[in-house]
Structures are given as C-alpha cells and as structure tokens.
C-alpha cells in the first residue's frame, strides 16, 4: 500500500507531525457496496430496502435484455466464485503478512528515532558536564598563579645566592691578600734579623763561645760521671 499520494504539508500546521493513518477504511458490504448507501436508504425503506432495490434492478436488466446472458456471464460467474473462495481462505494470512512487513518498517524507524534521541540526550549530558568543568577554571588559574609565583621566588633566591657567593669570593680574596702580605713581612723581618745577628757574631766571640761550651760540657760530663 503506497503512501505517496497523500498531500503533505499543505495546511498551516505543516510543521506538526503528519497525522497517522486511520485504522479501518470505509465500511463496505459484500465487498462492493459502501455502507453509506444502506444508511441512506434506511430511513425510508428499512433494512431490506437496498436488497429489494438490487433484486428489482437485476430482474429489470435481465428481462429487458439490457444485460445479455452469454458465454461471458458463465466465465464471470466461475471467476467470481474462485476469487471469493480465495479471498475468504487466504485473506487473513496475506493481511497478517502485510501487517508484519509494516511492523518491521515501523520498528526500524522507531529504533532510529530512539537512537537519535538517546544520542542527543548523551550529548546534552556531556555538554552540561563540560559546563560544570568550565566553572572550575578559577581554581586552575589560582594554581597557575601559585606556580608562577613559586618560579619567580626560586629564581630570586638563586640570584640572591649567586650575589652572596660572588661578594664572599671578593672579600675572601682581600682577606687572603692581607694575610699573605703580613706573613711575607714577618718572614722577611725574621730573615733580616737572623742575617744581621749572624753577621754580628765576630770570629773572636765565636772562639770565646765555643771555649765556654767545651768547659760547660766538661763540667756536665763530670757531674754525669759522678752520678753514675
């Protein structure tokens, strides 16, 4: 059953969803005559009116030979019998099969729609989560500021240490220079004094001191002999 000949989107409500198909079609009696005909004749002639009309019409057509009976009539009768029998026997099965096909189509469409809705829902939740995450950016910035402050502090202290080391090196140099100078002066003075003293010892004094040392040694050795 094709659905393409229905006019779509022709009213102002073109943006609303298309209304669903009606469940059952117009009522038809004996497969040929719409129910409205019977309802139309019911107030005047009751229930049997249309049937009387049909019988009278048929007899009139036959008797006036407006409808001629020939071989085609027999053929038509046979064909109609077969068709009615087939419809009565297999109609239900065919209808069930068609309904099943329709159901499958509907099910795929509905599944797609549900999937689309689901994915959009997940997208909405993700978006909300991202918005919540974006609220924490103040903490992020605070942390970054702390980091930078620490870097600056560390750099400042490094440079302070370098300055201290350099100044200490220069001061140490000055101190070393002074001690060196004093030491050199001291050594030089000691040497000069010794040189002068050695020079001032005349050969006469040297002989006298040596003689005195020998006398002292003899005296000592005598006392040592006596002790032993």
């Amino acid at each position, binding site marked *: *059953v094709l*659905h393409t*000949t*229905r*006019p779509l989107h022709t009213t102002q409500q073109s943006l609303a969803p298309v209304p669903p*198909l*009606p*469940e*059952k*079609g*117009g009522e*038809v009696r004996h*497969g*040929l005559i*719409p129910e409205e005909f019977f309802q139309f004749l019911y107030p005047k002639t009751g229930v049997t009116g249309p049937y009387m009309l049909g019988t009278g019409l048929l007899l009139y057509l036959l008797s006036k*030979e407006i*409808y*001629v009976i*020939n071989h085609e009539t027999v053929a038509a009768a046979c064909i109609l019998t077969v068709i009615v029998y087939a*419809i009565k026997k297999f*109609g239900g099965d065919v*209808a069930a099969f068609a*309904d099943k096909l*329709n159901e499958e189509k509907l099910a795929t469409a509905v599944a797609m729609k549900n999937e689309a809705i689901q994915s959009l829902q997940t997208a909405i939740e993700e978006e909300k989560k991202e918005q919540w995450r974006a609220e924490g950016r103040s903490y992020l910035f605070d942390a970054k500021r702390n980091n930078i402050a620490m870097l600056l502090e560390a750099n400042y202290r490094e440079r302070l240490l370098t300055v201290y080391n350099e100044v200490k090196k220069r001061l140490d140099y000055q101190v070393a220079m002074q001690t060196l100078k004093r030491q050199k002066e001291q050594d030089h003075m000691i040497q000069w004094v010794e040189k002068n003293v050695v020079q001032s010892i005349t050969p006469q004094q040297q002989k006298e001191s040596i003689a005195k040392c020998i006398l002292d040694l003899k005296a000592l050795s005598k006392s040592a002999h006596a002790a032993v």
Partner: protein
Amino acid sequence: GPLSERPLKEVRLGELHTWISTCNFSPQGLLGAVQKAWSSYCAKYIHVRQGGPAGISMLLAGYCLLSYGWNYQHFSK
C-alpha cells in the same frame, strides 16, 4: 455554509442546479474536481492500516460496468 463550495454530498436536491451553476467547468476546474474525487476515494478506502478487498474490488466492478456499457452495441447482436 456557503453554497458554492460545499461538496456534492451536502447539497440538497432543490439546490442542485444552483450548485451546478457555481461549478467550475474549465479544464483546470474539471481536472481539480477529478483529482479531489480520486484523492478522497483513496484516503477513504486505500490509505488505511487494515484495508480489505473493498478498495480495489469497487474499482474493478466500476471498470466492468463501464466496459459493458461501452461494448453494449457488440453484445446486443
């Protein structure tokens, strides 16, 4: 309601030929009328969830009657 644009079912017998006089008999009008009749027939008997044999059988019966009418000369020999 206004007489001129009511569908045929809601026109009373006495007003029939006023209604016919307000009809649009140009080709577009006739075509439009045929189109409307066909689409209302389809909407009522064919484009439903559970149609029966009624939809096509009425069309076939109409075709049988029409062809009998066209070939009546040939039959009545």
